[in-house]
């Protein structure tokens, strides 16, 4: 990179902050924008600048939002008595797209993990406790991931719900649709077997 002018080197270096982008990809991106798509590059820089400055967290659910309250929390037609707790904004989107859930959310922005320094404080415990104490919520759906840390988080969330007198439910674990038992991993199969349902 030694022969390049400084600004170009800086652009390549800056692009490397994107996940999965190494030196080579960053260089390709920079050359592509400069050679073929200056307009796209200008738009990217404008939107990126705006987004970094204006997108904060919703004051009710902690999801990313450019307003004080995000669109879901501000939507009066959503059921305020249901609160679904997820680890990340990506998890929220997955549930929105896959299910007909019409309640509200709370985004932890992480999971309980001592080694990563993520505890109740980092996960917005204070705000969540306030919402549980408001008396508005009848059921808290715990939708943390079925990982060790997700389960530990679910256990803690269950305690918060119990302390506030709110019913807590947990997403079921099971055999994936279209899956074959022979190929399902042992933990999932054991779990699905243990929590089998009565045939209606």
């Amino acid at each position, binding site marked *: 990179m030694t022969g390049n002018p400084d600004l170009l080197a800086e652009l390549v270096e800056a692009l490397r902050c994107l996940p999965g982008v190494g030196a080579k990809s960053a260089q390709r991106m920079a050359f592509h924008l400069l050679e073929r798509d200056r307009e796209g590059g200008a738009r990217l820089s404008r939107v990126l600048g705006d987004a970094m400055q204006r997108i904060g967290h919703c004051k009710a659910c902690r999801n990313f939002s450019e307003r004080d309250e995000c669109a879901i929390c501000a939507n009066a037609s959503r059921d305020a008595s249901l609160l679904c707790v997820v680890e990340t904004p990506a998890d929220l989107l997955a549930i929105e797209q896959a299910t007909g859930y019409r309640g509200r959310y709370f985004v932890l922005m992480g999971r*309980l993990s001592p080694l990563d320094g993520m505890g109740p404080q980092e996960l917005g415990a204070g705000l969540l406790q306030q919402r549980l104490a408001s008396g508005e919520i009848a059921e808290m759906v715990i939708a943390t991931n079925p990982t060790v840390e997700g389960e530990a988080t679910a256990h803690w969330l269950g305690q918060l719900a119990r302390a506030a007198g709110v019913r807590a439910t947990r997403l079921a674990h099971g055999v994936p649709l279209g899956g074959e038992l022979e190929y399902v991993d042992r*933990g999932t199969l054991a779990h699905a077997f243990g929590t089998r349902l009565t045939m209606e």
Partner: protein
Amino acid sequence: MRVESQPAYVLHVRAWRETSLLLEAFTRDFGRVGLVARGVRGARARLPRSLLEPMQALRLGWSGRGELQTLTTAEPDGPVHALRGDALLSALYVNELLVRLVARNDPHPGLFDRYAALLGELAEGPLLAWRLRCFERDLLAALGYAMQLGTAADTGAAIDPDATYDYLPEQGAVAAGSHPGGVRVRGSALLALDSGALPIAEDLAALRRLMRMLIGTHVGERGLQSWRVLAGPLRSG
């Protein structure tokens, strides 16, 4: 170097790049090792992601050298312990203890077996706090900081169950009030930890303070994250 079918437990998992994981594993013959598991996330994962979750008995294979080596194989080695609730939080605490106190590539086969046994004990349920104290005692001993629990450090006399002592980090138990610092405990608490016989609740609480102080001297000023992170969620231990 190439290692095959090594008994191991994953202590911690962190997402890395698009499809890889960084694992901190505790192995029987190689101690704590850092491994990169490539291509194990997403729909086309090479291994089931559930296999690399912490606290399961595994057989791991890896190759490479240096701080981070590459995971080549992973298979289950025995049944999965059903750790739930406080037992699960306790196990997360123990994992942080191992990551913070056991140096990488420093084998501790005895401690490995002790850890495996502890997970089984935690899964059984009761007496979590007491099981943790006994493990902490064995961990310190394995690292060369064995506690002196049977005799007083200042007089060399046998510990009197009814006497009160101050346990100092470098020396051990001395007559209460004779030296500054240390954690105040009754002789009965020290003898219980020495013999592994369940102490009364008051002694158990004193041992918790004692072990925390001793561990604190080895992990540095920041202390363990678990002390802060798990203080609310984990009430028992």
